[in-house]
């Protein structure tokens, strides 16, 4: 036991959890925390807006698979991270958000910079703590990391009143914590896994659907073994993109609203699906009723509440996905099950893939999205981490940027937060400084958090912003062209600002690339120079993202390029 302030105990507890970096911005109600941060060995990354701090912590958490930490002050500081918390919750990302709060005796008095951040964030956190005495802090931090990182990961908020930060107490740092109502570890039911294997073997047209859970649990090798032993084609959700190498002969890529045509087609034709860590989002499955028609669903997930939420499940295996898949691999090996690919279904799969690859028309513009993104893939090392913003560029990345090394692609897929990709890329770079990190961006999204260029430059976290600039809010424009009879409103960004000059004004490198050749060179320059780089690529504002499954329609009704 040692006597220290609440703020000091917070630093000690964070260090004990291995948190050696925090993203944040100080203010009145968290200054005692910052004063202790000054004395600690924890690295602080000063953001220009708290929202970016939360996205950086999110990006850090997804890549390192341990919670990223962000700090904000009370009131507006806290409300500025709400979008970041909601984004992390929607994509099951581990994150600890620590906010300052007005002193305990001021709570409820509508004090300066007071906001009920616990109440505001209730539906978008995995859990929230508000320690009312300093002595609670060590246990609260321990519990926060435990809750955030285990089971289905998610954001945890710790809201600490200023006097609780300042008060001294005898601190006890627990080495483990137990929570009566929280049991994240469930052993998968072996009998059900056995039945799942039988179901897959007895079906004629099986498919594996890999969701984000594969990436979160790092079950890449297990997934690949199962696919190869059973010779089953693999589609993914968008969040699961890159759960399986997209250059693998069994890979068909993402399904969904802007999924690959061959993936959607094969998904619709399948009679049995092994869904791994997927929540069957509307964006992935089109319509719930149509998706489950004539389809046997085996659902493996860590979260029991996902079973049967959106789809009727035939066999449900609850538990850590990596453990479930590992058990399945062991059983397949024990039973000596090793199929060859010589069957009508795989033949059909390969023909379908070939058909769409040959017949799908790509946009004719010299800087069509497919050409631009395939060039990026060509020059970017396979281990590079890629994030995206939200919009057309994101869906083109889904369609045309193949993820080769599993677990290197991250996007705000659930909440769809514009402005997420750039700060998340900086967080990713902090987690893995040794690999190149690229944010595939659109200028509409980049505008929202572009001031993180200061962070990328000054904190030596150089990332590449690969900016597909169509001078407009392209996805909205596409919907207005498609669904609103070309009544275009609120989409024109008028080529402003000049992104090369913008980058330069922050001390970053700005390159305008106006041909495929220039794009390749620009990326190589950025990779070699190791400073933050914005590559501004003027693309055709008229290009649509196709194929397209319109909202509220089934996958089989996907619209193909004409």
């Amino acid at each position: 036991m040692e006597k220290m302030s609440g703020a000091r105990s917070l630093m000690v507890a964070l260090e004990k959890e291995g948190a050696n970096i925090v993203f944040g911005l100080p203010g009145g109600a968290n200054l005692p925390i910052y004063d202790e941060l000054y004395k600690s060995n924890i690295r602080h990354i000063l953001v220009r807006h708290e929202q970016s701090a939360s996205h950086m912590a999110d990006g850090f958490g997804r890549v390192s698979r341990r919670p990223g930490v962000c700090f904000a002050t009370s009131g507006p500081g806290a409300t500025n991270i709400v979008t970041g918390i909601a984004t992390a919750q929607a994509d099951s990302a581990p994150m600890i958000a620590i906010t300052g709060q007005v002193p305990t005796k001021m709570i409820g008095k509508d004090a300066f910079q007071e906001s009920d951040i616990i109440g505001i964030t209730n539906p978008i956190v995995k859990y929230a703590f508000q320690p009312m005495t300093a002595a609670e802090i060590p246990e609260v931090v321990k519990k926060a990391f435990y809750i955030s990182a285990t089971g289905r990961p998610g954001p945890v908020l710790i809201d600490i009143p200023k006097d609780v930060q300042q008060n001294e107490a005898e601190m006890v740092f627990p080495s483990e914590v137990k929570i009566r109502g929280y049991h994240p570890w469930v052993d998968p039911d072996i009998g059900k896994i056995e039945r799942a294997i039988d179901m897959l073997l007895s079906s004629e047209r099986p498919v594996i659907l890999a969701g984000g859970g594969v990436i979160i649990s790092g079950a890449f090798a297990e997934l690949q073994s199962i696919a190869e032993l059973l010779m089953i084609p693999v589609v993914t959700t968008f969040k699961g993109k890159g759960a399986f190498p997209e250059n693998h002969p069994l890979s068909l890529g993402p399904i969904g609203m802007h999924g690959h045509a061959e993936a959607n087609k094969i998904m619709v034709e399948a009679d049995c699906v092994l869904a791994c860590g997927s929540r069957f989002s509307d964006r992935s499955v089109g319509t719930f009723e149509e998706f489950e028609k004539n389809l046997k669903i085996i659902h493996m997930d860590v979260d029991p509440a996902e079973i049967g939420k959106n789809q009727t499940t035939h066999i449900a295996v609850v538990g850590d996905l990596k453990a479930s898949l590992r058990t399945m691999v062991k059983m397949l090996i024990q039973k000596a099950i090793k199929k060859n690919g010589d069957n009508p279904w795989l033949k059909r799969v390969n023909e379908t893939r070939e058909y769409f690859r040959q017949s799908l028309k790509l946009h004719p513009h010299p800087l069509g999205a497919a050409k631009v993104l395939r060039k990026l893939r060509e020059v970017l090392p396979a281990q590079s981490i890629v994030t995206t913003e939200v919009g057309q560029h994101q869906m083109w990345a889904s369609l045309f940027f193949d993820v080769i090394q599993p677990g290197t692609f991250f996007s705000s897929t659930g909440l769809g937060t514009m402005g997420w990709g750039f700060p998340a890329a900086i967080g990713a770079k902090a987690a893995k400084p040794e690999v190149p990190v690229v944010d595939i961006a659109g200028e509409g999204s980049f505008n929202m958090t572009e001031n993180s260029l200061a962070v990328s430059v000054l904190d030596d976290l150089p990332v590449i912003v690969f900016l597909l600039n169509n001078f407009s809010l392209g996805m909205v424009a596409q919907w207005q062209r498609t669904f609103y009879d070309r009544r275009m409103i609120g989409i024109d960004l008028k080529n402003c600002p000049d992104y090369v000059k913008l980058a330069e004004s922050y001390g970053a490198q700005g390159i305008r690339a106006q041909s495929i050749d220039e794009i390749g060179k620009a990326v190589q320059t950025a990779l070699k120079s190791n400073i933050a780089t914005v590559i501004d690529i003027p693309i055709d504002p008229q290009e649509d993202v196709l194929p397209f499954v319109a909202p509220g329609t089934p996958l089989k009704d996907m619209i193909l390029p004409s």
Partner: protein
Amino acid sequence: MWSIISVLVENKPGVLFKVTHLFRSRNYNIDSISVGITENPEISRMTITTSADEKQLSQIIKQLDKMIDTVEVKLLDEKKSIYRELVLMKVKITKPSDIMEITDLANAFKCNVHDVRKSSIVVEITATPDRINAFEDLVRAYGILEITRTGICALERGVGNES
């Protein structure tokens, strides 16, 4: 389908808010909710009644179970549980004979009568909802001035033979 869910939760500030917020944010409906401390002061019991179809009910239970502050969630079988609601009803008295008639009715339903006045009488009834509704139908003719209900509280019956 009317269902009774019994939830044991951590007895901490904010837990009721989280439970009700869960119903709101997922578009479920709460018909009644009653909350009170249990034999263990760290734990409260919430009894929630809801009208939901089978699929929705299963989701409600899973989502409640997923909450970190819930210790146990049980869907109660009406036949294997005791469930009661307490209702206070202020009934209008128009003529002196009303008092005797309402008191007789109250006795027949094992209700307590309180606060007998010239113009009103308060009846306390503790019963199952259908019995309460039956009583309410009978006294409606006199005129119900005010009513307050606690919501259902319920407990599973014990195991073994009844003595």
